[in-house]
C-alpha cells in the first residue's frame, strides 16, 4: 500500500478497516492528518456529514478517535445492507 501509515497504531488499524470496507484515505492538512471518503457518497448514502470524515494527526485520545472512525464505517455499511424499517 502506497499510503503512509498513521503514527497512532489504533487509528492506523481503523483506517485499514475503513479501506477494507472500500473507503478511500487521502492524506493532507496540518492538524488534520487526512480524510476518509465513503465509497457510496451519493444521493442514496445515509452517512450524511460523515461521508467525509477528518482524521486528526494527534487526536486528544487515539483510542476514542479510532472508535469513532470505525463507527462511521459500520454505520454506513449497516445502512447499505438494510433498508430502514421505520414506517
Amino acid at each position, binding site marked *: 500500500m502506497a499510503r503512509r501509515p498513521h503514527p497512532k497504531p489504533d487509528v492506523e488499524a481503523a483506517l485499514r478497516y475503513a479501506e477494507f470496507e472500500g473507503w478511500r484515505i487521502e492524506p493532507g492538512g496540518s492538524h*488534520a492528518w487526512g480524510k476518509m471518503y465513503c465509497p457510496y457518497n451519493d444521493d442514496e448514502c445515509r*452517512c450524511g*456529514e460523515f461521508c467525509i470524515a477528518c482524521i*486528526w494527526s494527534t487526536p*486528544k485520545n487515539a483510542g476514542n*478517535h479510532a472508535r469513532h472512525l470505525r463507527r462511521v464505517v459500520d454505520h454506513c455499511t449497516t445502512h447499505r445492507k438494510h433498508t430502514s424499517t421505520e414506517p
Partner: protein
Amino acid sequence: MTDYEFTLKFSLPDAGANPDDHVEALAEAGCTDALVGIGQAGRIALAFTRRAKSAFEAVSSALRHVRKAIPDAVLVEASPDFVGLTDVAEIAGFTRQNMRKLMLGNGATFPAALHEGKPALWHLATVLTWLKERQGRAVDAVLLEIAKANMTVNIAKEARQLPGATLPRNLERLFA
C-alpha cells in the same frame, strides 16, 4: 470526570469557505476530541467524546469551542435527543415490536411524542426516564445525562426564535 458522547451538527452560512480551514480552526480551538464530518456542503458535524464534570459542561464547552473556530456556524441539532421508536428500541436493547407494545400498553404514562407523524418523535431523555422510573429498567446514567443536556440545548435553540423570548443567562451564553 466522565466521558460524554454526543454529536453537534451545524449549518455554515458562508458556502464559499474552504472546509479544510474550518477543520484546522477546530483543532486550534480544542476540538480534537471530536470526529469532524464535512461530507455535506454547507454543513459540519462533530462527534465528540468529551471528558467533563457534567454532560451540560461537556456540550456547552463544545459549543463554545466550535463558535470560537467558526463564528458564523449555526447549531442545527445536538444528538442524541430526537428519536423515533426504532432508535429508542436500539438504544434500550428491545426489539422495535417490544418497544411498540410497551408504548401502546402504557398509553396513560408513556411520554407524549413531540411529533406524532411517521415516524413519531420523542425526546430521548423523556423515554429513558419513563423506562427507568415507570418500568424499573436499567438505564445508562451517562446516556440519560447527555440526553437531558442535549434536550436542554435543542429546546433553548428553538425558544430563541420566539419574539421577545429571554432565555436564562446560562442558556443564552450557549449561542452568543
